[in-house]
């Protein structure tokens, strides 16, 4: 067969379709004429000849259709026909079309939004070449030396030992996330930053957009004014995208660094959910202490190496590496713990992410919830399609009678389904975009911006295609199942087909109700959790408390003047109008820092040793935070560096270390300091609101001579007075003009601390509301449909004097049964799924029967309203009118 000739024919058929068709008309007509002549030439009368010719020819149209089918490109043409017809049909019933597309947009939008987030956070690989062999190193073992912050694991000496000795990675690099202050003085202007080892960019294989990458040459111990690499975004915003950026210097609070390179726009770093703006070599940090655990280690495994093999390799190296990097300051016992640490290697093709750990579970739960919304939406669409297929049954019967085959008619339905689903998907994607932006906005705080690459990739497209396929099936399946009944005979007995449709719709309503039970339960659970968390006992006052963190440079003011500056600021802030009390603390609550210590308590039967937290505070701290002292005394002016060191314990510390017996007068030891406990204070949250109360040892700031360069002030404004951040800002600018300052209210921190729960509550509320709306529409539709169908019967019964309650019962009976079955199915489905939400539930048991009870009440109420409205309308029917209408 000649491919070229076929191709030419295909082009002709598709492009010059009308001309080809006209020629076919001519050809068949000519055939008919010749045939007629032929028959007439045998001596038949013209009329009989024409008739005989018609008979021999058969149906002219069917001959032409057969030719069209045989032509190449016939399929394309018929698909186009189906598509055009589908669009025409859908445009003819705008209310059906918009209801269907609306339902699908909600379902697809919800699912696609969550999938986009899952994809961006969990699945997407880093935008570097060959991300598959990236792996990261983690330290595991006793708590002695690990830091719990973002990815921080390894000290600089340990990193150097690892880089020297290891054999599993083809390339290895270390990095630490940090913030750089772009404002040389005054109020801080942080950008996200990275300290990177020399190999960072070369191992990742990132090519600079401008200039060069950092190399091992840049990362030399003791480097001063090291070169900086900046992100594409910073280049555009700070330097207007000018090419002369490479001759410029970055003026950071920590020093001046010449800009040596600009990164490509797609490279945001190795932490998913965050981006970096400035990268400096590790040497520029000045951190080289052996007990400073601040670096994360990542690299590319050698070809053929798995992470298990690499872990085994590091197991053999561990004793040697750790021995070489043991901090000299560690005592014998701490060193022993340190040497017990183990290395493990984990795949890291999608980078590292704190966000991922934090949101992994919530996201998968949301994904499941969104899937249920989609199921409810599909049930709605199927139900709508069923109603419409009843109306279209005569059309299908007519087309079948004219010779359309059942597969062809089903194909027509599928094409309509694809059109509706695709339109729904487009609308859904627009919704999903809005939703994703809203979610990221919710999660980001002013200082902690979350950046996720939400751009669609093949996974998103495949997922959307899958959704379109599923919803198309939902759209077409119910009418297609009935395809066999598409004949003109069946449509005359339409009443029965109505009935079976109603049954199918009742099942769908049951499905919707079951989904609603699950979704509304989830919404209630998450909303109650969020409320509980917000209302949870924090142990300190949240409202009217401001914080101001002051970051002084190492030299200005000089360290010996810091105590003086601190007193000045405290006094000055205290004089401000509206400020009732001022204090400062080493680790105020919820700011993301904690001071972990190993506390030792000598007792009669030996020494008790356990983890605790320390907070070094000024005397007024408990007053500002309104944390009541339960026993003993607060810190006072007599607690000086020369007096006996004193401490105040919180309730949990008393419980943990003293078995609840009053510890007043007892001694506790932290490192080289021994404290006498002089007071007990109420428990309060430290790191986050979710965690249980930790044992905290408060020590008096006044007893330690040299304050650090960072001072964290907390202030309580007088009740009713507006928080005067502006006054605080001015006062600080006068006393410490060159220091960095960060302001905020404790309320902001509390809100940020509950953001996961708020997010879950907000989204699950939306999903639950969507489900309820869909189910209500479903119930309304099925009741009004069955009421309309039975109008005649109702009219007769009413005319014969039936009680209206009986009539209502007749109309509602089945729906009630369906609703109850759906409700029970939903409850049965909810009980095991609620357990999945255990980690997010706070202060409420996911299986709490009160939730299910409330859900049942809500859904029954909505269902009752949706069912009673059409039922009442049926009752008001005038029997005469109804009987006339139907006869």
């Amino acid at each position, binding site marked *: 067969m000649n491919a070229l000739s076929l191709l030419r024919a295909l082009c002709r058929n598709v492009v010059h379709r009308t001309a080809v068709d006209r020629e076919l008309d001519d050809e068949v007509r000519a*055939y008919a004429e010749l045939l007629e*002549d032929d028959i007439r030439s045998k001596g038949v009368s013209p009329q009989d000849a024409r008739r005989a010719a018609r008979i021999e020819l058969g149906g002219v149209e069917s001959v032409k259709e*057969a030719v069209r089918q045989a032509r190449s490109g016939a399929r394309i043409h018929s698909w186009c026909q189906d598509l055009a017809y589908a669009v025409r049909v859908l445009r003819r019933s705008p209310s059906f079309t918009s209801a269907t597309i609306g339902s699908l947009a909600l379902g697809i939008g919800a699912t696609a939004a969550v999938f986009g987030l899952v994809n961006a956070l969990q699945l997407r690989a880093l935008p570097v070449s060959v991300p598959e062999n990236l792996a990261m190193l983690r330290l595991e073992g006793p708590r002695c030396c690990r830091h719990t912050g973002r990815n921080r694991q390894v000290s600089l000496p340990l990193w150097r030992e690892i880089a020297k000795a290891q054999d599993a990675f083809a390339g290895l690099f270390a990095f630490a996330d940090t913030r750089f202050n772009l404002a040389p003085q005054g109020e801080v202007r942080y950008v996200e930053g990275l300290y990177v080892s020399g190999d960072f960019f070369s191992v990742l294989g990132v090519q600079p957009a401008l200039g060069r990458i950092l190399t091992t040459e840049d990362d030399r111990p003791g480097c001063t004014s090291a070169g900086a690499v900046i992100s594409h975004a910073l280049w555009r915003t700070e330097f207007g995208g000018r090419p002369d950026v490479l001759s410029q210097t970055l003026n950071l609070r920590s020093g001046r660094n010449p800009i040596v390179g600009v990164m490509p726009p797609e490279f945001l770093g190795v932490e998913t959910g965050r981006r970096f703006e400035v990268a400096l070599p590790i040497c520029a940090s000045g951190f080289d202490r052996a007990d400073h655990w601040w670096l994360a280690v990542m690299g590319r495994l050698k070809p053929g190496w798995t992470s298990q093999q690499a872990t085994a390799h590091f197991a053999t190296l561990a004793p040697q590496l750790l021995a070489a990097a043991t901090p000299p300051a560690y005592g014998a016992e701490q060193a022993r713990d340190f040497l017990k640490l183990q290395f493990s290697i984990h795949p890291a093709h999608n980078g590292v992410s704190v966000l991922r750990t934090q949101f992994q579970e919530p996201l998968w739960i949301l994904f499941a919830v969104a899937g249920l919304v989609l199921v409810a939406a599909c049930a709605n669409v199927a139900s709508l399609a069923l109603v419409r297929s009843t109306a279209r049954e005569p059309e299908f019967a007519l087309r079948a009678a004219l010779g359309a085959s059942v597969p062809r008619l089903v194909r027509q339905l599928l094409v309509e389904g694809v059109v509706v689903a695709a339109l729904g998907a487009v609308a859904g994607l627009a919704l999903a975009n809005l939703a994703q932006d809203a979610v990221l906005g919710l999660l980001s705080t002013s200082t902690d911006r979350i950046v996720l690459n939400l751009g669609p990739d093949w996974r998103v497209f495949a997922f959307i295609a899958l959704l379109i396929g599923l919803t198309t099936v939902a759209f077409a399946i119910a009418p297609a199942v009935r395809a066999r009944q598409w004949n003109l005979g069946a449509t005359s007995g339409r009443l029965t087909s109505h009935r079976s449709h109603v049954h199918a719709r009742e099942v769908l309503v049951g499905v919707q109700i079951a989904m609603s039970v699950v979704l509304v339960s989830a919404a209630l659970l998450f909303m109650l959790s969020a409320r509980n968390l917000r209302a949870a006992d924090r142990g300190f006052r949240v409202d009217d408390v401001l914080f101001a963190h002051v970051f002084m440079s190492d030299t200005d003011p000089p360290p010996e003047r810091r105590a003086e500056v601190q007193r000045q600021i405290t006094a000055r802030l205290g004089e401000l109008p509206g400020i009732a009390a001022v204090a400062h603390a080493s680790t105020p609550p919820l700011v993301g820092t904690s001071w972990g210590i190993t506390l030792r308590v000598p007792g009669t039967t030996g020494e008790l040793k356990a983890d605790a937290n320390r907070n070094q505070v000024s005397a007024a701290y408990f007053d500002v935070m309104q944390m009541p002292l339960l026993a003993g005394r607060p810190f006072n002016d007599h607690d000086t560096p020369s007096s006996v060191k004193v401490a105040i314990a919180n309730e949990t510390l008393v419980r943990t270390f003293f078995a609840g017996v009053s510890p007043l007068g007892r001694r506790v030891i932290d490192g080289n300091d021994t404290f006498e406990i002089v007071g007990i204070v109420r428990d309060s949250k430290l790191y986050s609101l979710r965690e249980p109360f930790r044992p905290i040892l408060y020590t008096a700031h006044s007893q330690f001579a040299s304050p650090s360069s960072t001072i964290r002030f907390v202030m309580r404004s007088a009740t009713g007075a507006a928080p005067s951040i502006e006054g605080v800002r001015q006062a600080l600018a006068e006393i410490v003009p060159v220091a960095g300052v960060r302001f905020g209210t404790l309320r902001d921190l509390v809100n940020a601390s509950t953001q996961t729960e708020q997010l879950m509550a907000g989204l699950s509320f939306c999903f639950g509301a969507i489900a309820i709306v869909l189910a209500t529409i479903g119930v309304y539709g099925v009741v009004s449909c069955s009421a309309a169908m039975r109008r005649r019967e109702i009219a007769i019964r009413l005319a014969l004097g039936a009680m209206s309650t009986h009539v209502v019962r007749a109309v509602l009976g089945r729906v009630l049964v369906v609703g109850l079955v759906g409700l029970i199915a939903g409850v049965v489905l909810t009980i095991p799924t609620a357990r999945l939400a255990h980690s997010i539930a706070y202060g409420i048991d996911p299986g709490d029967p009160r939730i299910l009870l409330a859900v049942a009440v809500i859904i029954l109420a909505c269902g009752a309203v949706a069912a009673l409205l059409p039922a009442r309308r049926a009752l008001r029917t005038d029997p005469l009118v109804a009987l006339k209408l139907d006869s």
Partner: protein
Amino acid sequence: MGVVLADRRAALLQGTLDLLILKALSAGELHGLGVSRRVQQITDGTFAVQPGSLFPALHRLEEAGWLESDWQPSENNRRAKYYRLTKAGRRQLGEEAAQWNRISLAIARALET
């Protein structure tokens, strides 16, 4: 349905119809009705080709490049579309005829034993 046996309404293979049309046109160009009559004639009336099979087959063969067509006046002065074999069509006829002979020989032998 392809070619219909004039007496018994049995369906034959599609390839048979193509072969018969190519054979019918091997003697010279013909219009649609001419092809139909010629097939009837060369098979001694065994096969009658219905228009519903003839036209799709003609168009298919033309699209495959084995036939070409143009409009000409017919013998009784009507316009008709005339089909003729192309070079490729003539080659195809040879191949299909050879294959048919092989098959019919084999089947004949099989039936003899």
